């Protein structure tokens, strides 16, 4: 939506978006999202970070804070301020775009920030600022939702207390049919585009729409989007689990008696668990995932441990450029 500057000629419009077998141009079904891959803790300077690939989208999100806010007149006495910057790299689209904020990115930044306000426990950090930076490195339809999915994990990675994760996905209309997670041609030439962001309970925290749909279609679109967001939430949770369960593995296999730091982690995590399976790693990660607030608090501990333990640093230090070539699914080439 509002992507005038990327658009190619209308003559490129495909005759049909969905073939007789119900498959879309990139081979997906109408309710299928593009392959998504996420990784957290990718930037060492940031308090939290996430790299996401979704179809041909490549997005990097980082969180700094909570930290002191300057100038002071912007500080809020009773809560932290969230700042969200959605930014597209000049080279991220077909025709180079001028770097820096434009009207589109300012609007997206605003609504994306508001998508997180309902879940971030800002009242815990009065006077502070939580900066969220989302950089779109490669754009291929659905960048605002991709950025939100990445930012959500970056916030969790930074240990910011949240009521839950936010997941985002778009529903659109092509050939008179609703489809989940628009690809580039569907976005450019489709009849409607509805990006949404939701909490895990299905409360809608971001909603935009343009195009042409009926009330009934809108109702159906919410349901489709809910399913999509659920799927994305599972990927997000898995990503968190991957990082933090690995940390525990290393911790406990270490010399327990001499390593007071690992003991701290262990006790923290166990105390947040109801049952007494103190050695049971599976239950520990489960506990982490069940309650994001609790999760965030324990993560703080884990982060501090991470700095002292070199042995697992390499777990999450995969270079971003390395990912680019190999992880793009083959069928996505058709969508460009």
């Amino acid at each position, binding site marked *: 939506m509002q992507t005038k500057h990327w658009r190619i000629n209308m003559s490129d419009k495909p005759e049909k978006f969905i073939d007789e077998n119900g498959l879309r141009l990139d081979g997906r079904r109408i309710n299928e999202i593009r392959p998504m891959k996420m990784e957290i803790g990718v930037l060492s300077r940031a308090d939290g970070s996430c790299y996401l690939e979704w179809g041909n989208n490549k997005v990097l999100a980082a969180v700094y804070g909570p930290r002191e806010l300057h100038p002071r007149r912007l500080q809020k006495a009773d809560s932290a301020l969230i700042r969200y910057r959605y930014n597209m790299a000049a080279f991220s689209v077909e025709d180079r775009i001028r770097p820096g904020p434009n009207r589109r990115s300012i609007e997206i930044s605003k609504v994306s920030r*508001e998508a997180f306000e309902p879940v971030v426990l800002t009242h815990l950090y009065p006077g502070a600022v939580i900066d969220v930076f989302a950089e779109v490195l490669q754009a291929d339809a659905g960048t605002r939702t991709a950025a939100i999915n990445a930012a959500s994990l970056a916030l969790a990675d930074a240990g910011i207390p949240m009521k839950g994760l936010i997941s985002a996905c778009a529903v659109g209309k092509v050939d008179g049919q609703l489809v989940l997670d628009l690809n580039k041609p569907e976005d450019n030439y489709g009849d409607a585009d509805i990006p949404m962001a939701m*909490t895990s309970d299905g409360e809608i925290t971001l909603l935009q*729409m343009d195009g042409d749909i009926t009330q009934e279609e*809108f109702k159906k679109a919410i349901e489709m989007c809910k399913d999509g967001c659920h799927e994305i939430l599972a990927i997000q949770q898995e990503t968190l689990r991957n990082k933090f369960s690995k940390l525990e593995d290393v911790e406990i296999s270490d010399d327990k008696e001499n390593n007071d730091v690992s003991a701290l982690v262990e006790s923290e995590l166990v105390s947040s668990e109801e049952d007494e399976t103190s050695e049971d790693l599976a239950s520990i990660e489960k506990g982490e995932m069940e309650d994001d607030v609790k999760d965030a608090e324990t993560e703080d501990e884990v982060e501090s441990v991470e700095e002292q333990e070199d042995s697992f640093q390499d777990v999450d230090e995969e270079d971003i450029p390395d990912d680019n070539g190999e992880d793009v699914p083959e069928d996505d080439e058709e969508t460009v």
Partner: protein
Amino acid sequence: MSNESMSILKKDYIYNLMLKGKREDGRTFDEIRNIDIRTNVIDKAEGSAWIKLGDTEILVGVKVQVGTPFPDSAGEGVIITSMELNPIASPDFEAGPPKENAIEMARVADRGIRESGAIDLSKLCITEGEEVWMVFIDIHVLNNCGNIQDAASLGAIAALLTSTVPGGREGRGEDMPMPIRDMPVAITLVDIGGEMMLDPGLDEETACDTRITIISNQDGSISGMQKSGDGALTEEQLLKAVSLACQKASELREAHLLNI
């Protein structure tokens, strides 16, 4: 949610009124303030409309000029919508380039006009790939008493309905009326303690967490939506808002736009 500051007492007051099923100005939850539209108030503009929505006042001017088309839509005219939250309109507005609020509202108003296909852009082409008519819709907020969004959208379409394309003046054939095909109407609701209220006044807009704008067309289809503000909406709230907005939009169109 807006930039205005508000005491907690006032917020409580609005919330407590809601519990009694009332609003500050005595309206019902689904009642829109009085609307007064005067068109063609600025002679220098190709089209204009002065909107009063309650005490909110907005002036929309349309200028039409010859320009070059975008390379990707060589045979179509161009729409450019901008909004200025003039410091004359509120003690909380400051002079300077548009901030995110103004940009958001201008873009939502633009979305309504653009996505509904309200203007037949192909008729605004003079020479394909070289010259087209550019339609500048400038929204000037004069007095902010809440719900600038709806007033701006209504003003934009009203001003467009009275616009002419100045072919004679520019030496590009004859004057023609603006090719209007549809009349999108934006309806905004706010969530006050779980109740959805139509056409928020300033205090309601300030007290609420969430605002939702729904733009619908003559045939009842939806051409644009935007959630704004720090809160979240449930599915039920949203669906209720959409059906209410579509119904109110058609009433409003009937009463104020069809006679222009």
